[in-house]
């Protein structure tokens, strides 16, 4: 048995990441051609939206009490079996097959490219597979974009809670600032709206200005982040947690009190912005910007915390007083950390608002903040890849568990408590994914002997 496992591991390990991605792309092709027919054949009624997970769980009967729930379990199991067959036949086999076949050519191909180009090729392939796979069922695209938004939320919060060791529980407040500022701008500039009237700029501008507006939303959120940064000079620990929570409440309450932008009823019209953008060039703009947003977030945070300047953040976590006495300008560092963190929360908010097409203040309560916390602690404090993983797992789980309604939340908070009790270091235990699988192995970096020139001092 152990022998078999080892051989499987070896087999999987020999395939570089790019080959997997291409394999998945091929699998998606198989799904486009044969998914519908195969799904009908094995009794799934068509292409399952999300590997059959959501559909399986929706067989559970949540309204008939415990008896009803138990009685509905067989019907769920009856769905799971064909769903598994579907996943293996449509996704698993083609991915592995194509991956295995392409393993060698891919390794050769990437070895001819400079490293940055290899990275780019990976990104483009990943994006294409998301696009094609997501394009098949609209709901998938939505989930992928939620994952992106959550990755930005979790990794930016990780900068504070993981790297700096403070306890911020008001991330949703900054998200709200970004969401409102960017939505107001786009709706004002690009759509016919009840509040703002006719669009101010031509449709063509929307394409160019959209990313800039996301950044403006981020800057606004970054400025709001100062509300936490300044108190953090004097207060820390649980007192700072209170500050963050009250900032969250204040932002939400302030938005509720501005009638002009909908007050407690919320604000909409962002779907119109999207229509304007696609009317110019018809590509999934939001998917593109979410994708790019995630990349930028991860690169910025990674580069920051691995620079000597950014490591001041970690020194604050380890011993703030020693940090200050050993020449680290702790105030400056805190302001930087909080600003960067809330900037990205704001960007996530802007994306989120446009994905959803509608926002209201009660979206951005302490519940949302705590969800971001759950993702950070699940992935592990101080681990960016952990945050990426946990944001993915968390978002998919939340979508899959949708049929459980309120009980889904109960599970989330229960998980938070259990994490604190039994695995405080999260799934990654403070390590990065690259500590387990090397970049060389993944095919993202050439083997050490070929590395020449500058290697980042940080690693």
């Amino acid at each position, binding site marked *: 048995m152990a022998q078999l496992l080892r051989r499987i591991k070896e087999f999987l390990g020999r395939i570089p990441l790019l080959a997997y991605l291409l394999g998945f792309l091929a699998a998606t092709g198989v799904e486009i051609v044969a998914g519908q027919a195969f799904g009908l054949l094995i009794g799934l009624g068509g292409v399952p939206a999300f590997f059959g997970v959501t559909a399986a769980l929706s067989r559970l009967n949540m309204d008939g009490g415990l008896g009803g729930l138990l009685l509905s379990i067989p019907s769920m199991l009856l769905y799971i079996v064909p769903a598994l067959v579907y996943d293996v036949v449509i996704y698993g086999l083609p991915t592995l097959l194509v991956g295995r076949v392409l393993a060698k050519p891919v390794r050769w191909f990437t070895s001819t490219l400079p490293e940055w180009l290899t990275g780019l090729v990976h990104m483009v392939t990943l994006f294409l597979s998301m696009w094609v796979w997501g394009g098949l069922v609209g709901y998938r695209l939505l989930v992928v974009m939620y994952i992106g938004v959550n990755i930005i939320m979790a990794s930016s919060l990780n900068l504070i809670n993981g790297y700096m060791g403070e306890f911020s529980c008001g991330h949703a407040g900054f998200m709200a600032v970004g969401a409102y500022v960017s939505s107001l701008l786009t709706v004002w500039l690009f759509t016919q709206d009840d509040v703002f009237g006719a669009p101010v700029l031509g449709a063509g501008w929307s394409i160019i200005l959209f990313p800039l507006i996301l950044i403006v939303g981020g800057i606004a959120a970054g400025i709001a982040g100062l509300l936490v940064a300044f108190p953090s000079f004097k207060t820390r620990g649980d007192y700072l947690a209170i500050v963050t929570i009250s900032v969250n409440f204040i932002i939400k309450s302030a938005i509720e009190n501005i009638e002009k932008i909908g007050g407690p009823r919320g604000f909409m019209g962002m779907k119109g912005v999207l229509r304007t953008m696609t009317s110019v060039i018809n590509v999934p703009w939001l998917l593109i910007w979410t994708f790019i947003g995630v990349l930028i977030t991860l690169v910025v945070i990674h580069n*920051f915390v691995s620079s000597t300047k950014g490591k001041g953040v970690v020194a604050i976590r380890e011993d703030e007083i020693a940090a200050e006495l050993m020449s680290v300008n702790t105030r400056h560092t805190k302001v930087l950390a909080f600003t960067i963190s809330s900037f990205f929360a704001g960007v996530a908010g802007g994306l989120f608002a446009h994905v959803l097409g509608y926002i209201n203040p009660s979206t951005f309560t302490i519940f949302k903040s705590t969800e971001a916390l759950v993702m950070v602690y699940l992935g592990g404090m101080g681990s960016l890849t952990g945050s990426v993983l946990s944001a993915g797992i968390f978002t998919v789980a939340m979508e899959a568990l949708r049929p459980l309604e309120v009980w889904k939340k109960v599970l989330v908070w229960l998980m938070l408590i259990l994490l604190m009790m039994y695995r405080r270091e999260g799934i990654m235990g403070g390590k990065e994914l690259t500590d387990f699988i090397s970049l060389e192995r993944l095919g993202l970096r050439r083997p050490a002997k070929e590395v020449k020139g500058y290697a980042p001092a940080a690693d």
Partner: protein
Amino acid sequence: MPLLQINHLTHFFGGLRAVYDFNLNLEKGELIGLIGPNGAGKTTIFNLVTGAYRPSQGDIRLNGDSLVGLRPHQITAKGIGRTFQTIRLWNNLSVLDNIRIAQFAQIRYGVVDSILHTRRYRDEEKEIKKRSLELLEVFELRHLADEIVANLPYGQQREVEIVRALATKPRLLLLDEPAAGMNPGEIDTLLKLIQWIRKEFDLTIWIIEHQMRVIMGICERIKVIDFGETIAEGTPAEIQSNPRVLKAYLGEEGI
């Protein structure tokens, strides 16, 4: 002009007088000691000099510039490095990172540089890393550069802390009970190390010690405080025969 000049330094914690009318002129290149029984206020004086506390009264000048009111990292950047009574390294970071971060004040690049990996960033980081490794090399700790500090034995942590203090490029080095927890053999090595550092890095050194015999050998001048007040000052020989010191200090060690 003395390197460090302390005039009438007084500090209260609430109603408690921790330091009273402390005066010191420290010339460049000197190696002096500050001793006194437990709770005499020695560490408080270091905390006042390095800016961790703001003095209630009095003045502290480095090369004639007043340090009072500056934040600790500014004072460190002006050239005062220190170690702590109980080791305060950044435990979950590597030895190299501990040394790198202590060069924070030398960073000239901005956040944007660090994010975009500009030439300026790369040059400075290369320099910082080079200097850190050189320092570690000098102390024969280079092979431990990637080790997590918490995993090192006590003695090596003490050394790393001294290296970290040196990384801040000090002119004046404050050592707070560097021999605490060491056995006689280790203490001998430490004393040699201190004298060697002083020459090698052209430093002025000020040592706090609780155990009097530790610094009798290396200090040129010793100040003794008790209950925040200076009770004696002089060469080791003078201190050893000073009746007030014997009473306040050696008396409790048991003659």
